[in-house]
């Protein structure tokens, strides 16, 4: 297997995700899941593996929602997918079809051609009825439908822009209602996104949206690979690329360690080693990573972690968040909330303990920081910490 940073991975060769997939199947038996992970951590690969190798009794449907910009597009896409799906078993989405016919849809050659809609399109009905049709049909076969929806926050953001925040809120509420009404008949959803769904909801809440549309779902975070798996992946790629090395174990170890278990960076490092044409060693790995972190072009786009701060936390909290992250970055050991507060006070950045705790929770959700057993904060990823120190000149 060759290094393939960013490309699509052969599902038979996915490394180190069996445990989380088992956990997902166990969880999904009880409730739907919202999955949160940094971009390029491999969540799409996990979803595709769920889709390709379902547990018995499940019928997964995968859709990349990034391409839909309005609630209607979304609803139509779900209808299209349900219809395509049912037609495999020579079934149709009865309710939806009936509904669409009632509002002017016409059937051409077995396919229903949807009518043209204006701004008041009945997307909610199409969405609800399509899913109800699917659930009902599958229930007859004792099968449970599972929607695997990738990049949900992107779609919500687009809907917010095109249809307005109100419609975005309604989409979330409709999905929640469907989970509640159809959940006992087996319907489940897995919603994923690389920007935290909490940010989308947070911004909707600024528009007086009071619901908690996802609190019925299980929050699942996809973590980087465990060290042993990261090592396994690195070793596989090194072997797949025929990279010469006198110390294969140490090499795999060092790649896994330095990449913090991020498959994307592991693939990148191995490819860079390959293209260097040199005999690989831990020293070369270190050299390559240093080069990447110091490269003014920022090939791993780590500057994104800096640039998104005003977007995520607002201009008003930018300085405080930077102060928090700087304060944690310069310390070798995890830091307590009190110590951070003292430091931020001295710097005139923040003096309210509660506000600090709120910000810490948010940066934790966004994968900057994590807490140890004593509740002290540290950088979640050593690689990010290293870059942060370098880029901030700390």
């Amino acid at each position: 297997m060759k290094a393939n940073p960013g490309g699509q991975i052969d599902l038979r060769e996915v490394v180190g995700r069996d445990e989380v997939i088992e956990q997902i199947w166990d969880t999904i038996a009880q409730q739907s899941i919202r999955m949160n992970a940094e971009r390029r951590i491999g969540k799409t690969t996990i979803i595709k593996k769920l889709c390709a190798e379902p547990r018995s009794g499940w019928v997964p449907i995968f859709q990349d929602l990034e391409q839909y910009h309005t609630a209607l597009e979304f609803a139509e896409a779900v209808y299209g997918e349900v219809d395509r799906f049912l037609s495999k078993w020579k079934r149709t989405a009865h309710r939806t079809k009936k509904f669409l016919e009632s509002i002017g849809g016409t059937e051409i050659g077995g396919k229903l051609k949807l009518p043209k809609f204006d701004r008041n399109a009945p997307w909610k009905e199409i969405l609800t009825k399509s899913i109800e049709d699917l659930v009902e049909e599958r229930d007859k076969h004792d099968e449970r439908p599972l929607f695997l929806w990738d990049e949900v926050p992107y779609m919500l953001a687009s809907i917010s822009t095109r249809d307005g925040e109100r419609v975005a809120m309604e989409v979330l509420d409709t999905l929640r209602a469907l989970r509640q009404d159809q959940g006992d008949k087996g319907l489940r959803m897995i919603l994923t996104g690389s920007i935290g769904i909490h940010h989308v909801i947070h911004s909707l809440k600024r528009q007086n949206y009071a619901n908690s549309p996802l609190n019925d779902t299980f929050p699942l975070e996809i973590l980087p690979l465990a060290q042993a798996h990261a090592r396994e992946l690195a070793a596989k790629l090194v072997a797949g690329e025929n990279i010469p090395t006198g110390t294969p174990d140490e090499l795999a170890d060092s790649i896994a360690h330095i990449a913090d278990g991020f498959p994307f960076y592991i693939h990148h490092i191995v490819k860079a080693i390959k293209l260097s044409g040199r005999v690989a060693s831990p020293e070369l790995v270190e050299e390559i990573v240093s080069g990447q972190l110091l490269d003014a072009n920022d090939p791993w786009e780590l500057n994104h972690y800096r640039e998104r701060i005003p977007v995520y936390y607002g201009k008003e909290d930018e300085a405080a968040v930077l102060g928090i992250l700087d304060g944690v970055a310069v310390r070798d050991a995890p830091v307590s909330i009190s110590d951070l507060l003292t430091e931020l006070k001295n710097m005139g950045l923040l003096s309210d303990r509660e506000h600090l705790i709120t910000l810490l929770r948010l940066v934790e959700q966004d994968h900057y920081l994590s807490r140890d057993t004593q509740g002290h904060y540290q950088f979640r990823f050593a690689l990010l910490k290293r870059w942060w120190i370098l880029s901030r000149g700390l």
Partner: protein
Amino acid sequence: MNDRNFLSVFTPSRTPPEDLEAIFVQRQLMLADAVERVRESVTTGNKHHLLFVGPRGTGKTHLVTLLVHRLSLDMDIQDRLAIAWLNEDETSTTLLEFLRRIYLALNKRYPDSYSLVALEPIYDLDSDTAERRLGNLLLEHLQDRTLLVVVENLDALFEGLGEPGQQRLRAFIQENPVLCIVATAQRLVDDISKRKSVFFGFFQTESLVTLSVDEAAEMLGKIAILRKQADAAAFLSTPTGRSRIQALHHLSGGNHRIYIVLSQFITRDSIDALVGPFAKMIDEMTPYYQERIRWLPAQQRKIVEYLCTCERPVPVKDLARRLFATPQTISSQLKDLREKGYVLSAQRGRESLYEMAEPLMRLCVEVKENQTREPMRLLVDFLRVWYDDSGLFARLQKSEKGSLDHAYLQAAMDKNAKFGNLRKQLLVDGFRAELREEQHKQWMPLIESAVEDSEELAYAIGENAKGHIEEAIAAYSAVIQMPDAPVNVVARAFLNRGVAYGQQGDSEKEIADYTAVIKLPNVTVELIAKALINRGITYGELGDYENEIADYTAVINLPNAPVGQIVDAFFYRGFSYGQMGDSEKQIADYTAVINLPNVPVEEIARALNNRGITYGQLGDSEKEIADYTAVIDLPNASNEQIAKALNNQGTTYGQLGDYEHAIADYTAVIDLPNVPVEQIIDAFYNRGFSYGQLGDHEKAVTDYTAIINFPDAPAEQIANALNGRSWVYSEISELEKAIADYTSFIELPNMPMEKIILAHYSRGVELLNHGEIDKSIEDFNTVINSPNTPAEYLARTLSFRGSAYLRLNQLNNSEQDFEATLRLVADIPIEFRVAFHVGAHIALAEIRIATGLWDYALSTLAEGLKQGTTYDPPYFGDSTDILKAFFDSGLAPAIRRERARQLAQIYQDYNAVPHLGEALTRHVGSLYRNLENLPASDNLEQWACAWEEAGKDMPAFRLPLRIFRTGIDFLKTGGKDRGVLLDLKQEERRILQQALGLDAADSS
């Protein structure tokens, strides 16, 4: 034109792929890697997406053409692969259009499988349905095949698709993992590179860099071979050919396409063959570049247009002046332009110079602006580089007036007359750009002086500077063999080749080359002197001092040799005499320099410093100091030499024990302006050491700390300072700080292993003294297990680890370590050995008493005391712990008496009874310090009686026993009644008080 020789300048895909393979350079590894990745995409579920980024003319299409060619030849994958190579001139604004382009490309390549008829019904559908239907059509036709989509100008495609189109495309790829995309782009646009972009991280991106000089030469050579023009290929590999390609590099900017055009001229020596294709290339590219310039904001456009008219890189202030703007405004615009890839910057000292990144852009602007249809500047410059004046003139004579040839040749000659030899300028500029800033001082003067006499020599020196030794040697050899080369050029080539052979370690050839210079007729005296000095140095390196000195002497005696070289020869010869131990002649040579007329003051100072050091080595401190003083008083001597003299003089004063004068000298160095950092740090270190010797620990610490905090201090000097400071901390019992310093030392980067080992040793000792026994053992283990530990330190460390184990009561481990110490003790230098030698015996005796091996313990102790007597003065170590082990063994009174007698006898045998007495007193002190566990009175009384009985016939034991008895009586009062101490005389009482740790005042 022969078909096989047709290299399409604009459309490499029209060139036969075999020819493209034949002229392919620079990217073999990248191409092979890309082929492997596509192959894996075809044969497994992994789908790779590759993107190659580079400006126009950098060989992108060449690369993908070969990629497709190699894949097409791979029969193993043909039934699993479909290739859609999209037409690069079409655009797509929707996923539907993109899918249609893919289908049409497949139709072109596989008309039977992807018919146009199947596409027809799709045109009748609305766009959403059509997109879905076409997607399905493609997937159905592909079956199990992987679809390789080759997209040129991905940046344009993404721009056309916009974000919604990109999102649909990405979703299509994700939902249908059958695509493998190989794309090219002229630049890395935000649509790909920004994390928030749809395709962030999706592609494996490789930047295509321009050709280096070597790669350009390789490509031109390959083109010549392809065209079966062996002469041209051979010429390109000569130093003359290489020096011309080196000069051309600046004009071409390393652009593949320009080299392909130039190759037509180089391999056929025809100006027609150059101008025609060039003009066509410019016609084709001008709209593109015009467009790119039009996109720019007005201010940036003006900068670009001005830079296009400039012959050379331009400083910011010139640009600002020309464009009536402030340098700050221009700088910020240039920064933006550089990020966009329009301009390049180079540093000259503190100044930034800017020029156009793409020579073709400059050329296109020039042609557009040029209304009079004058010859194109780049081509004129190219002719100036390729031909000498004589070559230009000869061709001009043959050309027809009014012809294109004539116009270009005339323009080239006119420009040469006006601006000088462009090739020489470019050759020098090229090397200046390629060499690192710190190399300039050494190499650029050599290259600049050589280029005036011989470009080939300048080229060879430039290659040498770049570290291409083989290439440089070949180039020097070619210069040597050039039939008409001037003798001094040949001599310089010999000299430099000699140095290059020396770099390769081939001393024989090196010496032969210097000898060749010496024997050449009519060579300048400077070159002969240089060759003699170089040969002398080489002889010296080989240990042949006789020949070495003869060569230096020859320089000294050479009529009309420049004084600088004579001075060098004296210095080298003096040093060499010193190596041979002939200090007298060494001093005579330094004296000769001092007395030589017209010698620069700096050299006199150097000679005085060297002579002073030599006097010092002879032990003549007076003359030594006199020489240093002479430097310090020398008018116009540099501060560097004065600082050296002061540092040397301070050291001499220090060796004489005159630390005050030493400190004054070091302080003078520290206060002197413009002194190299190393000298100042040396002065701080030496002053810190001197303060330490005077017992002024605070100032010593301040000086060492100054070094540690010195910006840019070399690691070695920081290491020395940490070492010095930790020693002081240890002296003043600030053990934690001493330990911290050793830790900092150990963590310094790039320290030699031996030094790190010694730091572990020292830290271990301090940790042991500080009571951190486990940590001390860790350090000792590091020392003992390291293969780099010197034998002396192995023995020392085993002894310390033995002590550490003893304190942890791990008697077995301790015994093993002390026994090992005794086996290795001879490795410790005699002046330090005794403490380890006797100490190990005493420790072993203690262990054996504690483990009940009394007789064995006695013989061990006897051996230790015996060894102690062999040293001068005799040394018996500290027996307190032996007594402690004996006392703690809790024996019956009779046995205790007997053993006390035996012990006392052994000490008596080796005249060490007073020593035993001191140990008894110290033992009393240790019992007092542990009052909570004070032994019972009768036990103490028995202990005293046993010793009194043992020593009753030993006169030397009388006084110690009296003190000991008083001490025991004091302990029997529970250490409370200090009146007991008054049984002793005042001086005896003081000894006991000291052992008990009482102030004299407390008990008086």
